[in-house]
């Protein structure tokens, strides 16, 4: 009997001390990297407002994808198709804008993302296939679709309302990409942390059976998170198209791993039950800052990749160690 009690006491003691570190790993890591670059690159323009705002602008699409992925991963699923969705959505928007104008183009881009996400979700929730396999397949499928959509050509987007609203413009002196980031993070955080839906997403990823016997419709949650992820990847596609004033099948192709790393470093568990939108934002900014700082340090391309890989490895290792004991 004393053994059982001692064990319990131990666990509660550990709980208090672990709690702080676990929650702040990503923020401490971010701060450490920021301070390092601020010191090392103090004469290289790293600390200029222009450069710092560039980092936020450059990471905006990845941040928005990361928000969707937090929902997916917190529900215990994965979405590997987000990169392909970005390209399909950007191309769908570009082609439609050029043919039918602004509003149909935006709808086509977002609609394409939502639709692909919905198909992913339906296959996972109702056909009961593992999301890893479903989205691995749709990743390849839609990479092919985006290539065939315009026969590998890039499509220019000249509608200045579109490019201004989604990528290159600004409102009240703040670039539109920053507005999108702020809005997406705020809404994402509110829904994830403060709504019943968010609570049900966490419960589903934590213990799907417990969620089901508590009256939560687990399939509906799975459908919803993958649809959200698809929709946000579609929005990221619009932002890329707006920023580049063009769409191409390569958009988003290299983002998947960055986004997954940002989400995990930001405190979301790979197997569900725990997640953080603000953490994902900071994780994403950290990735962007890393790219930016390593370039400004004047490292060769291969050295940049090696250092970036090592830092991400360290960050992921620390955040997973803290969470999994």
């Amino acid at each position, binding site marked *: 009997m004393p053994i059982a009690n001692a064990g319990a006491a131990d666990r509660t003691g550990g709980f208090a001390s672990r709690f702080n570190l676990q929650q702040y790993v990503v923020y401490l890591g971010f701060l450490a990297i920021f301070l390092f670059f601020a010191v090392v690159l103090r004469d290289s323009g790293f600390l200029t407002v222009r450069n710092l705002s*560039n980092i936020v*602008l450059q990471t905006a699409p990845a941040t928005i994808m990361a928000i969707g992925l937090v929902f997916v991963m917190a529900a215990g699923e994965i979405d590997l198709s987000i990169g392909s969705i970005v390209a399909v959505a950007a191309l769908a928007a570009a082609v439609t804008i050029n043919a039918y104008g602004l509003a149909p183009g935006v709808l086509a881009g977002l609609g394409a993302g939502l639709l692909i996400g919905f198909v992913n979700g339906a296959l996972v929730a109702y056909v009961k296939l593992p999301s890893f396999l479903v989205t691995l397949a749709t990743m390849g499928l839609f990479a092919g679709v985006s290539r065939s959509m315009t026969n590998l*050509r890039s499509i220019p987007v000249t509608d200045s309302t579109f490019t201004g609203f989604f990528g290159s413009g600004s409102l009240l002196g703040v670039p539109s990409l920053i507005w999108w980031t702020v809005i997406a993070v705020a809404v994402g955080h509110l829904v994830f942390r403060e709504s019943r839906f968010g609570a049900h997403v966490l419960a589903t990823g934590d213990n799907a059976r417990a969620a089901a016997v508590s009256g939560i419709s687990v399939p509906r949650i799975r459908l919803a998170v993958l649809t959200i992820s698809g929709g946000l990847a579609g929005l990221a596609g619009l932002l890329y198209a707006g920023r580049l004033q*063009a769409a191409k099948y390569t958009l988003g192709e*290299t983002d998947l791993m960055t986004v997954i790393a940002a989400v995990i470093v930001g405190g979301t568990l790979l197997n569900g039950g725990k997640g953080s939108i603000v953490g994902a934002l900071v994780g994403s900014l950290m990735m962007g800052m890393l790219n930016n700082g390593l370039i*400004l340090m004047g490292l060769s391309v*291969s050295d940049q990749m090696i250092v970036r890989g090592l830092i991400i490895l360290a960050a992921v290792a620390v955040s997973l160690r803290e969470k999994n004991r």
Partner: protein
Amino acid sequence: MRTMLKSLVALASLTVATTAFAADGATTGPHGETPTPAASLTLTPQQEDEIKASKFTAALVWHEMSEYTNAVNSGAHDEFKRLGIEVVAQTDAGFDAARQKSDVETVLAKKPSIIVSLPVDPATAAAVYDPARAAGVKLAFVDNSPAGYEQGKDYVTIVSDDLFQMGNKAAVAMADALGKKGKVGYIFHDADFYVTNQRDGAFKKTVEQDYPDMKIVAEAGMADPARAEEIAQGMITQNPDLDGIYVTWAEPALSVLSTLRAAGNSHTRIVTLDLNEPAALDMVKGGNVAALVADEAYNIGVTVARAAAGSLVGQEVQPFLVVDSLAVTKDNVADGWKKSLNKDVPATVADAMK
């Protein structure tokens, strides 16, 4: 370094002279520019002193890293160093236009005087380079320039391969290997891609015009390099008596080589483009590979760096500068590696030559 460059230049003009008889045709720039030999671009000692005194800086913004980019990159590095220009940043976009845009924005924080770059997607690259252009940075490009940009005003120049010359030299090398007669298979890149289209076309044209006893008896378009083996298989099955096969570049040529080996075929010769270690190894061991035509990639880097630096001190630069290429055979493989990539021939190949 300087003497090496000089001998390079001398050698280049020599090769131009010796191949001047070949089929008519010339490389045209991506926007229809007339080519100018890279060797024609020189800086006076006064200009070089002025450049060295000005403490310029440069950033290299690549589309992706490959053996080719590496060679261009090291050529640019060496030339910038020679001219006292510091390379402050270097990036790799992994073929992603969005990332290249971020890379340009990022390097601008270091306020470089020059950006040397290869655009991922020339058709839409204006949005990528606009911030640099607006900041007054001298832009010099490799292989292609953003659509809508005007040479002389928006950018300094484009430096590229002499693509026609490469295809032409491949045809000459094939003729040398076959004794100017025989049946030839032609595997071309079946895609709308400026670089390969010009090289493939020049090969075909040269064979047809200059070598009446050589016939292209089999043609196959390759859209996906992963399918090269199947294409070669089909071609060899239908034409077992081919004397030579031209392959559009080295990677798929390796698939053709393995198909020939599997069929026990040792008489069909392969000519392809780009230096490649396994292909070179087969060549020096007396296998099917007869020649590899390589561009002077290192020299592209030297030229683009020199052009950008020169433009900062008022030097006029031609819109489209092309470097030479060379046919690398068993006899000049070590020399070829040095000239093309400014590297020693790989150890495996060197050992096999002993």
